[in-house]
């Protein structure tokens, strides 16, 4: 193989990166082709640099790019040996220095038998005939580290929908339309008309299950609290956070280390009909338990809570598939429960702001 088919490499790389979770669209693919036309991909190295600029949007993604790119050339040559190149695609391009050819062609001086049995590159080489690997859901990601169904940013986005705007702030918002209306009515202009600033009057009560089976999800709950308090449109004083372990019975805690108890009645006393309550707990789904005491305790708590407000939703960090057979399944039938991903959080927020679609588990 004497020439280097940049178009082909771009397409392969595009598909591979996309299947690896890179956020790329057709526009980005076409931009890469345009860049090649503009002479930004004359040899493999230049092309790799161009694609990195175009397609990688953080240093982390850039380091991710290299191994994939390295695995690609061999792939191309394997493909080339298997079938003749596409006749229309052939372009005369200058021959490349020796090292590129070496990079592009597998070294034939070594007999096949002497090759190590399994190399990561060779494993990659078999990929073109496979369907691209697509992430089908969080079930596929086996290690807890990869379990990241919801990002902090999408939490911030979701919180914005929890709002109950009331114009009771300082009167310093200029109302141009009202000013002009007033001038035309009076016939002369005295002063601009100001309206009161809007404030978000939504009141949120977060009840978080802590420790035990929830330990792996502490970074979610922490992000949830931080985003709700600092990066949402909610007024920080209107966000109340309490912690409990397994079942909030009798008292809840004001700190994540469960050392400062506060009676549940006192907490509920602060609620009114407009308080949104979001409970975050795995409800036994993490370990697959189905315990009568837990269900009974939770039901008692929910019954108590429902006397104060009906804006209640439950976020479960375990995926809905894992609820089956555990206490979570039973609880999910009595209260809107959602798995903690983008859709789940926005649905839960829909419920607690009092505008639910019809949800029901089972």
């Amino acid at each position, binding site marked *: 193989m004497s020439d280097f088919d940049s178009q082909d490499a771009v397409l392969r790389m595009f598909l591979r990166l996309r299947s690896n979770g890179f956020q790329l669209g057709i526009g980005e693919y076409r931009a890469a082709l345009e860049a090649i036309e503009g002479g*930004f991909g004359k040899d493999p190295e230049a092309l790799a640099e161009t694609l990195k600029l175009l397609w990688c949007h953080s240093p982390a993604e850039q380091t991710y790019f290299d191994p994939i790119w390295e695995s690609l050339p061999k792939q191309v040559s394997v493909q080339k040996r298997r079938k003749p190149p596409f006749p229309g695609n052939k372009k005369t391009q200058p021959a490349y220095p020796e090292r590129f050819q070496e990079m592009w062609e597998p070294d034939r001086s070594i007999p096949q038998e002497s090759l190590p049995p399994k190399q990561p590159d060779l494993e990659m080489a078999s990929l073109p005939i496979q369907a691209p690997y697509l992430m089908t859901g969080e079930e596929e990601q086996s290690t807890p580290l990869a379990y990241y169904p919801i990002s902090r940013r999408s939490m*911030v986005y979701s919180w914005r929908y929890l709002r109950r705007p009331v114009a009771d702030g300082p009167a310093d918002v200029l109302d141009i339309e009202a000013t002009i209306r007033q001038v035309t009515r009076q016939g002369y202009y005295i002063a601009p008309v100001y309206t009161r600033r809007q404030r978000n009057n939504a009141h949120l009560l977060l009840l978080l299950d802590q420790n035990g089976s929830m330990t792996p999800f502490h970074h979610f709950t922490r992000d949830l609290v931080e985003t709700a308090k600092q990066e949402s449109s909610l007024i920080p004083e209107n966000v109340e956070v309490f912690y409990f372990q397994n079942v909030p019975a009798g008292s809840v805690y004001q700190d994540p280390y469960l050392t400062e108890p506060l009676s549940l009645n006192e907490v509920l006393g602060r609620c009114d009909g407009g308080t949104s309550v979001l409970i975050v707990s795995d409800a036994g789904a993490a370990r697959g338990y189905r315990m009568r005491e837990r269900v009974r305790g939770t039901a008692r708590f929910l019954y108590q809570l429902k006397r104060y407000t009906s804006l209640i939703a439950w976020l479960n960090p375990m995926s809905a598939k894992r609820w089956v057979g555990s206490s979570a399944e039973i609880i999910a039938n009595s209260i809107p429960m959602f798995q903690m991903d983008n859709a789940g959080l926005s649905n839960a927020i829909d419920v607690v702001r009092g505008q639910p679609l019809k949800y029901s588990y089972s």
Partner: protein
Amino acid sequence: MTTSQRLTFEGNPDRRTGNAHKDSPEQPEPYVVSPELKKAVNLAIYLRRPLLLEGDAGCGKTRLASAVAYELGSPLYRWDVRSSTKAQDGLYEYDALLRLHDVEVHRIQPDQTSQSKNDENEDGRIPEHRNPSNPKHYRRLGPLGQAFRLRDRPAIVLIDEIDKADLDFPNDLLTVLDDPWEFTIRETGETIKADPAYKPIIIITSNKEKGNLPAPFLRRCLYHYVDFPNDAELLKKIIEQHYQIRKTTPPPAKLVDIAVNRFLKLWREGGLFKKPGTSEFLDWLLTLHKFELEPYDAEQLESKQVLPYRELLFKLQQDWKNSAKAS
């Protein structure tokens, strides 16, 4: 487009032609551009996609825009983003209250109005003599708005510290920075459309203060991470260029050598909570050279445990205390 007429950036201020735009920077920008960054800029110019620069503070993200604008002779419109900035601010602002005020003044003192000559108000600023019946006199074009109006060359628009803005800001920008490259001024009914041949070159900087930018926005951008010039040769080249362009005498070579070494040692050793950037280094060097009547003694700089003028390098209490302890 052939290569000969294509706009390119070489990192060489001498390429500037005589007929530079009036909004182009007057002073050359001492900027040593790495080959990777040069390619990123050229790719951004070619594809007219925004170039997103990230990197530590003081590593020359912002300065790149003026270097590019100076070399190309293009106008530079700088847009400093604040937490309250809306995407529309970059396009235009409309001063309805001023117009209302002018109507009243006009009624009281009718003779004072002078018919403005520029009915179209091509300037993009609010003119001194305004006619309230002409809505165009009350719009002020923002950096992007001005860049969209250029008809003879592309403008450089620097959107500085985009991460400071509201969550929606980057996404709102996207709708403007894409085909068909136009926006409408609601108050005057004008539609401002960029010339397809001279679409603005957008350079965006971010410090990642508030987390990541939204994915759809990132997708459109070219991304380059500006690294600190962690190399003695490179740092010396930067110093040389700085003094050459400013036309001042550089510090003695020995002082530069030792200063570079001490600084890089400090930088590489780690343990700093906030690493000083290139700009801090240049300030420090200038101080060593010029603050006293005589340049700071090179040998003393080498032997002294505590760095002189460390207030220029350490900006956090912890770093400051550690630096005094003497490594």
